[in-house]
């Protein structure tokens, strides 16, 4: 699936995008091109309603450590669960003290919350949300876009859907100024570095923001 060369000159380009979820897919695309932004939702699982809640209250739910808990993630690793999203920690269970891991994670998430609020208020990045395992409704897309524009009137939102009947992978349309809806294919149930449809993503991103 990784058919587009991982040209490192695209690293800075892909720093200009911010993943809002719903999975690690866009974060893996950024890694493919050497971009490693410090984004809150890059390695997170968050559904559209969770994103709407989080944007509505400026991610305030993650401030209190009592709202965070460690849960079993894939590959025998820890995830952290917050009221509206979970995040991979890439720490094997049994290799770290759980209480200390939660403390360090909470501390890091406070930086990431600060970072995403800065990003939303600066309106310099394209904000990307890709549905996973559910169909994102038009109403949800409109609601998310409205919330993003509430942070800054120039925010650009790219909502990406799994390719459906009659839709071409890698296609993207500007629905209204600042709101884009694209389509990518993803056959695998679990997103991994090898299953990200890089060519389609790359085409969408370059249509929206040419190099």
């Amino acid at each position, binding site marked *: 699936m990784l058919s587009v060369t991982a040209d490192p000159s695209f690293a800075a380009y892909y720093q200009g995008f911010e993943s809002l979820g719903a999975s690690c897919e866009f974060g893996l695309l950024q890694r493919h091109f050497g971009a490693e932004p410090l984004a809150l939702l890059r390695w997170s699982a968050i559904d559209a309603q969770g994103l709407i809640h989080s944007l509505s209250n400026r991610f305030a739910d993650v401030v209190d450590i009592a709202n965070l808990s460690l849960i079993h993630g894939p590959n025998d690793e820890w995830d952290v669960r917050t009221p509206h999203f979970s995040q991979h920690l*890439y720490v094997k269970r049994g290799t770290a003290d759980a209480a200390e891991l939660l403390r360090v994670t909470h501390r890091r998430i406070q930086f990431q919350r600060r970072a995403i609020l800065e990003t939303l208020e600066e309106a310099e990045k394209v904000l990307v949300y890709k549905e996973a395992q559910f169909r994102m409704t038009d109403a949800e897309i409109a609601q998310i876009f409205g919330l993003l524009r509430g942070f800054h009137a120039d925010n650009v939102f790219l909502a990406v859907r799994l390719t459906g009947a009659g839709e071409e992978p890698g296609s993207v349309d500007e629905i209204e100024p600042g709101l884009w809806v694209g389509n990518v294919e993803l056959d695998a149930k679990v997103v991994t570095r090898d299953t990200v449809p890089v060519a389609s993503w790359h085409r969408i991103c370059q249509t929206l923001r040419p190099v």
Partner: protein
Amino acid sequence: MTEQDVFAALTPIFRAVLSDDAIVLRAETTPRDFAGWDSFRYIEIILQVEEALGVKIRSKEANRLQNVGELAALIATKKAAA
């Protein structure tokens, strides 16, 4: 605070976060020079820098840094402006 001073302050932070007492920082040192480097560890370094040196680093600034020399220069500039 000179960039030299900043380097002296950064070294123990990098060593602690990356669990490697042999780390020697140079201006041209990049993340690719460290085994185990990832964005989570980078955030921990930024947080420890903020606490130890009393500066605030915006995520946009952190994302743009290419090497340790740029980090040291940013910190020195912020300290001078404080």
